[in-house]
C-alpha cells in the first residue's frame, strides 16, 4: 500500500503534462476523458487506500513513502516524501472525490468554451498541487503545494482573461494570499532555525521538548504560520480577495474557492496542532478571528445581489466556523465541518453555476425567480444543499457538523459563551441568507427563462453531492443522540484530546437552541422574501445594508491604507537620481543620433564634399607624420 500512494498526486500531474504538451492533437473528448479520468483514478486509489487504512491500521498511524531526496545541504534535508494519516486521508478523499465530480460537471459546463483544454490543464494541476499539499511529510513540500494551488487559483480566476475585471480579481487574490504566504515562509525559516528540520513528524515531537507553553518564540512561530492560514482561507483581515475570486468559472469556485484550497489554512493549523497548543494566545486569537469572520461575512452575504457572491461570503463565514472550532481545540469537529462543507458548498456552487449558465450569464438574484418548476433537479439539490448549509436539524449533514462546533465552542475548556453566542448569531444569519437566496431564485414569479435543462453530466454530480450533504452527517452523531463516532474515532490518533470545561449547560439545550435558530432563520426568510409580510427594506435598501454589501468597507480601507500610498510613493519615486542617470544617458544617445542623422540629407554633392574633406584631412595628418 505504501508504495502506491504517490500515484494519487502524480496521476493528475501526468494528465496535466499530457494536456499541456499535446492539447493541439487530442480531441475534446480525449481531453475530457484525460482530465476527469485522472482525478477519478486518484479518487479510486484514495478510496482503496482508505479501506485498507481502516481495515488494517498501519504502524504509527500513517503510510509513508519517500520518492526522492529533494535537497540535502548543511544538515538540512527535505525529501519528496508522502505521508498519509487519518487527517490526510479525509482531505485526500474530499479533494479527489469532490474534485472528480466537479471535473465531470465541467465537461458539460465548459463544452462551448474555447479554453476547454486549458481549463482542464489548470484544474488537473490544481488537484495535483492540492494533493501534494496535504500528502507531503515536510513543510517545504507542503509549501510547494501551497504555492501551486495559489498559482492555479490565480490562473483560474483570470480564466476569462479578456475581461480586465477578471484579471484584476485574479491579481487581487494572488497578491492578498501572497501577503499571508510571506508570513508563512518566514515562519518556516524560524522553524528551520530552531529545529533544523521541516519534517512535520519530527517537528511535532520536538516542539514540546524545546518550547515551553506560551514561550515568545512559539507564539511568534504560531502567529507567522497563522498569517499564511488566514491568507489562504480568506479570514479576517485577509478575506477581501474571495468575493472577487468569483470572476472565475463556477466549477472553479466550487472546487478551489469552496471545497478545497480555501480550507488549506484549516489543514495547516490542524496538521501543526502541537505548535498552536504551545501558543495558547494564538489559539484564542484563532477562535476570535473565526467568530468575527463568520459574523462579518454572514452580514455581507445577507445583502449581496450576485448569487455567487452570496456563496463566496457564505464560504468565508463557514471557514470562520472551522477556525472557531480549531481555536477552541475541537480539531476533529473542524475537519468534520470541512468535509461536510465541501459537499454542500460544492453542490451549491455547481447548482449556482447551472443556473447562471442556463439563464444567459445572469448573476443578479433579483432578476431570477420562479425557477422551482423550470429546473426541478437543480431546485431540489440546491434546496438540500441550502438546508445543509443552514443546518436544518436531524436530516441534514450540516446540522451534525455545525452543532458539534457550537457545542464545543461553549463546552471546551478554552471556549466561552461569547464565542458560542457569535456562532449562534452566525447560524441565524446563515439560514437567513441561504433561504433569502433560495426564495429569490426559485420562488416568486419567473423573470428569466432558462435556455434548456442541464444535461446528465451536470445533474449527476449534483445528485451525488446532494445525497452526501444529507447522509454525510450520520457518521458522527452528537454524544447524546447515538453511539456513532466513526469520524472522531478515525481522527483520534492525529489530534490531542479535547478537555471539556466542568460547568456548562447540558448538551441537549444547546442543540435545541441551535435547531430553533436554524428553523427560525428559515421562517424569517420565508416571511421576508416569500410572503413579504415583513418588509425586507432593511436588508435590501438601507445604508447599513449598503455598508455590508461593500464587505464592511475593507476594500475601501485597504485601498486608502496600502494601495494609494504605494501608488503615490512609486509616483514620486519615478524620478529619483538613479532613474535620472539612466534617462539622461538615453537622452544623450538620442540627441547625438539626431545630430548625426542630419548628415544624411540625401544630397549627392554634399556626400562627395564630405568625402573630399575627409580625404584632405587624412592626407594632412599623414603628411605631418
Amino acid at each position, binding site marked *: 500500500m505504501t508504495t502506491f500512494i504517490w500515484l494519487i498526486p502524480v496521476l493528475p500531474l501526468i494528465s496535466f503534462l499530457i494536456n499541456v504538451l499535446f492539447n493541439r492533437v487530442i480531441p475534446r473528448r480525449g481531453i475530457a476523458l484525460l482530465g476527469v479520468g485522472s482525478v477519478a483514478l486518484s479518487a479510486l486509489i484514495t478510496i482503496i487506500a482508505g479501506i485498507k487504512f481502516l481495515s488494517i491500521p498501519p504502524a504509527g498511524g500513517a503510510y509513508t513513502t519517500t520518492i526522492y531526496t529533494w535537497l540535502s545541504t548543511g544538515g538540512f534535508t527535505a525529501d519528496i516524501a508522502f505521508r498519509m494519516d487519518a487527517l490526510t486521508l479525509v482531505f485526500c478523499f474530499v479533494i479527489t472525490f469532490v474534485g472528480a465530480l466537479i471535473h465531470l460537471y465541467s465537461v458539460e459546463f465548459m463544452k462551448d468554451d474555447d479554453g476547454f483544454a486549458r481549463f482542464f490543464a489548470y484544474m488537473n494541476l490544481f488537484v495535483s498541487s492540492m494533493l501534494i499539499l496535504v500528502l507531503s511529510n515536510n513543510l517545504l513540500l507542503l509549501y510547494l503545494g501551497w504555492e501551486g494551488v495559489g498559482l492555479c487559483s490565480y490562473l483560474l480566476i483570470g480564466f476569462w482573461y479578456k475581461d480586465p475585471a477578471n484579471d484584476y480579481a485574479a491579481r487581487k487574490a494572488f497578491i492578498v494570499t501572497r501577503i499571508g504566504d510571506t508570513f508563512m515562509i518566514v515562519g518556516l525559516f524560524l522553524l528551520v532555525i530552531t529545529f533544523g528540520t521541516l519534517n512535520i513528524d519530527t517537528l511535532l515531537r520536538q516542539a514540546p521538548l524545546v518550547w515551553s507553553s506560551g514561550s515568545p518564540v512559539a507564539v511568534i512561530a504560531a502567529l507567522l504560520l497563522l498569517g499564511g492560514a488566514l491568507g489562504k482561507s480568506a479570514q479576517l483581515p485577509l478575506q477581501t480577495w474571495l468575493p472577487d475570486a468569483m470572476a472565475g468559472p463556477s466549477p472553479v469556485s466550487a472546487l478551489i474557492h469552496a471545497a478545497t484550497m480555501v480550507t488549506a489554512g484549516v489543514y495547516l493549523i490542524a496538521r501543526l496542532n502541537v505548535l498552536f497548543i504551545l501558543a495558547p494566545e494564538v489559539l484564542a486569537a484563532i477562535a476570535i478571528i473565526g467568530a468575527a469572520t463568520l459574523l462579518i461575512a454572514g452580514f455581507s452575504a445577507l445583502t449581496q445581489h450576485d448569487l455567487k457572491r452570496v456563496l463566496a461570503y457564505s464560504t468565508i463565514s463557514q471557514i470562520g466556523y472551522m477556525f472557531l472550532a480549531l481555536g477552541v481545540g475541537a480539531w476533529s469537529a473542524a475537519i468534520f465541518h470541512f468535509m461536510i462543507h465541501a459537499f454542500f458548498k460544492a453542490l451549491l456552487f455547481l447548482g449556482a453555476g447551472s443556473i447562471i449558465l442556463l439563464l444567459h450569464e445572469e448573476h443578479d438574484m433579483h432578476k431570477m425567480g420562479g425557477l422551482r418548476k423550470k429546473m426541478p433537479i437543480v431546485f431540489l439539490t440546491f434546496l438540500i444543499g441550502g438546508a445543509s448549509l443552514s443546518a436544518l436539524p436531524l436530516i441534514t449533514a450540516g446540522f451534525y457538523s455545525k452543532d458539534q462546533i457550537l457545542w464545543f465552542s461553549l463546552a471546551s475548556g478554552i471556549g466561552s459563551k461569547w464565542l458560542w453566542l457569535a456562532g449562534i448569531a452566525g447560524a441565524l444569519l446563515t439560514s437567513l441568507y441561504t433561504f433569502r437566496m433560495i426564495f429569490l431564485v426559485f420562488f416568486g414569479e419567473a423573470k428569466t427563462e432558462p435556455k434548456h435543462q442541464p444535461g446528465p453530466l451536470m445533474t449527476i454530480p449534483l445528485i451525488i453531492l446532494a445525497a452526501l450533504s444529507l447522509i454525510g452527517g450520520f457518521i458522527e452523531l452528537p454524544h447524546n443522540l447515538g453511539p456513532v463516532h466513526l469520524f472522531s474515532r478515525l481522527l483520534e490518533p492525529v489530534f490531542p484530546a479535547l478537555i471539556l470545561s466542568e460547568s456548562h449547560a447540558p448538551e441537549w439545550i444547546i442543540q435545541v437552541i441551535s435547531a430553533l435558530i436554524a428553523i427560525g432563520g428559515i421562517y424569517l426568510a420565508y416571511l421576508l422574501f416569500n410572503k413579504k409580510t415583513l418588509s425586507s427594506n432593511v436588508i435590501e435598501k438601507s445604508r447599513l445594508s449598503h455598508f455590508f454589501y461593500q464587505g464592511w468597507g475593507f476594500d475601501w480601507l485597504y485601498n486608502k491604507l496600502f494601495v494609494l500610498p504605494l501608488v503615490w510613493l512609486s509616483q514620486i519615486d519615478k524620478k529619483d537620481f538613479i532613474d535620472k542617470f539612466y534617462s539622461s544617458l538615453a537622452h544623450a544617445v538620442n540627441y547625438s543620433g*539626431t545630430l548625426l*542623422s*542630419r548628415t*544624411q*540629407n*540625401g544630397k*549627392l*554633392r554634399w556626400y562627395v*564634399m564630405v568625402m573630399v574633406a575627409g580625404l584632405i584631412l587624412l592626407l594632412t595628418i599623414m603628411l605631418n607624420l
Partner: protein
Amino acid sequence: MMTVPMETQILFAGVLFLIGLVGLLVRRNIIFMLMSIELMLNSAAMVFVMGGAHWGHADGQVMFIFILTVSAAEVSVGLALILQMYHHYRTLDADSMRKLKDHKANENL
C-alpha cells in the same frame, strides 16, 4: 625625343584631377558629374602610365588598360541609371534626387 620632367607630369595629372573634382562638386547636371569622374579616373590612369615610362616597366600600361575597362563598365551602368532617372523624374539635376535622406532628422531642410 624630348623628355618632360617628372614634376611637370605629376603637376599636369594633379591639375587634371582637380578640374575633375571641382567639376564634380560644382556641377548639378548628373551627366557632367559623370564626365568629371571620367576626368579624374583618366588623370589617375595617367600617373600610372607616367610611372611605367619613368621606371621602364610595363605594369603602368597594364594598369591603364584595367582602369579603362573599369571606367567603361562604370560609365555604361552610370548612363543606364541616368537614363532611368530621366525617364522617371524628367530631370538631370542631382540635387533634386534626395529620396535617400533621413526624413526624420532633415524635416526642416
